[in-house]
């Protein structure tokens, strides 16, 4: 089975290539899930579409045990909308081939949760989001759990499929040095069917100024609030 894990380095700020070290929790869970599913003869490839700063995430994936790491190089994806980013990633995925694509549920920056489903749309394959467990079943099928607000669903599906995960096994070997380097994948080699961006041009982004929490006066108030939680 060819398993592709989509990762990216969390951005420090909008319209900035500066990134934070580490992975978004969803990407970390996706990577750990892919590595845990790997059996003899399987490939686990980490893939990103973004600036050189994404190499940090890809190198982390290599150290954790991914066999290959690919970064799609194209300035168009720097502040891309969902559709453009998904188109670019789908182009890369068609090139590598895939059986199972794993993505994080949402990034720790824009947190749209849309990249995985959008990539699945471009590739015309099914997707399932908010997944907490993926296991192999008989006959090449996969069993997975989707966690909802108060319930869970146990699903069975046959690859090719894209799964966006919230939780996964613990990533254990990320500090192991890797001899493998991140490879570049140029868009010039790809045929992109759609490149018109759909960004909202009239948006405004503001920092949150100071504490926004409604402050409780006493522990009594906290107890009352927590009693409503049960």
């Amino acid at each position, binding site marked *: 089975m060819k398993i592709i894990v989509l990762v990216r380095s969390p951005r420090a700020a909008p319209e900035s290539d500066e990134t934070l070290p580490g992975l978004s929790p969803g990407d970390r869970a996706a990577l750990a899930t892919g590595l845990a599913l790997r059996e003899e003869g399987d490939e686990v490839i980490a893939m990103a579409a973004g600036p050189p700063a994404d190499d940090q995430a890809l190198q982390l994936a290599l150290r954790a045990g991914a066999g290959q790491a690919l970064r799609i190089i194209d300035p168009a994806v720097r502040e891309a909308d*969902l559709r453009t980013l998904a188109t670019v990633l789908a182009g890369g995925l068609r090139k590598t081939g895939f059986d199972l694509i794993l993505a994080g549920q949402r990034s720790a920056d824009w947190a749209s*949760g849309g990249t995985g489903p*959008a990539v699945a749309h471009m590739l015309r394959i099914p997707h399932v989001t908010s997944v907490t467990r993926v296991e192999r079943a008989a006959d090449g099928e996969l069993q997975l759990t989707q966690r909802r607000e108060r319930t869970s669903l146990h699903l069975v599906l046959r690859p090719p499929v894209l799964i966006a995960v*919230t939780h996964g096994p613990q990533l254990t070997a990320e500090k192991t040095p890797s001899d493998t380097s991140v490879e570049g994948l140029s868009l010039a080699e790809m045929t992109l069917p759609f490149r018109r961006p*759909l960004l909202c041009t009239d948006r405004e982004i503001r920092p949150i100024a100071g504490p926004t929490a409604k402050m409780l006066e006493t*522990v009594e108030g906290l107890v009352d*609030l927590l009693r409503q939680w049960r």
Partner: protein
Amino acid sequence: MANILTYIELDQNEATSASLWALNRGRDVASDLGATLYAVLPCATTPTYDDEDIIAVLSRHGADKVILISHHGLAPPALFATHGEALVAACHQFPPQLVIFPASTEAHDLAPRLAISLRAHYTPNATFEKEDQRYLVVRRIFRRRLVIREPLTLSEHPMVVTLHRGGDPEHLGDDEAEVVMVHASVKTSQVRIEQGPVDLPDAEGGPTVGGGGGLNSATFEQLELVARALGGSIVASTTACSAGLARSARRVGLDGSVVESPRYLALGISGSERHVAGLAPHTEVVAVNTDPSAPIFASAQHGLVADAEGVLRELLKRLNEDPGAAG
């Protein structure tokens, strides 16, 4: 006239409160901006008509019309893999300028791909705000440090939004909504539901309680007891894990996992960007910290400036006094 479609999520054949809240907000926008508000209801069997039927409920919560997508393959729970095609068909028949979903797991499986199918702009986990006679779609991004505000214009470029519930839904009138049927073809999906919905175990379905570097090993034990009294589980900050107060598997944030539960009680956690990166957008945060300027208070809905150790002691005492406590 513009069309606003609101997706209705069902729980045991009744519309969820979050869906009715979303329908209320759709009514606000439709009335102010001059649009027709549709409630979109996929269902496996055609609903009955009486005072308490779902069509009457949707009418009372603001729907002008109800789009009924009836097919035996459309029983809840919905996934895009099973219901997506029918939803796209409804949007082709009634082209929307705005599609509103209640922010939920089901919506976050359906909405982004519907947005891509419609070539629409997608904004999840948002609220509507009215400012100077215009509506804004507002949400927090970048680890809850920034807020993005986008104008809602019902233009030729549609928007798909998942909306946070901000209160209880209200009855807005008694006019009966017109029912329109959409006949969608539903193909056999590659994804099948083997079991479910299955109730989550308490420790998974309950709130999450997090401890930070402001605690010590004795208070971490109390944290576990408080989590148990609330029917939840515990997590920890990187500082607490590095200090050996909790196992690294409990770590939340860029070095660890994510809090997905709807409620999070953070005790002695300063709220560094790396930690807040692990809080889902829908998670309501209540923070306790001795420092009133701690960044966690900018990420929380409620806060208490107090010593976490004393608060834990008091919580244990008070929560266990309650007859409903500790399962």
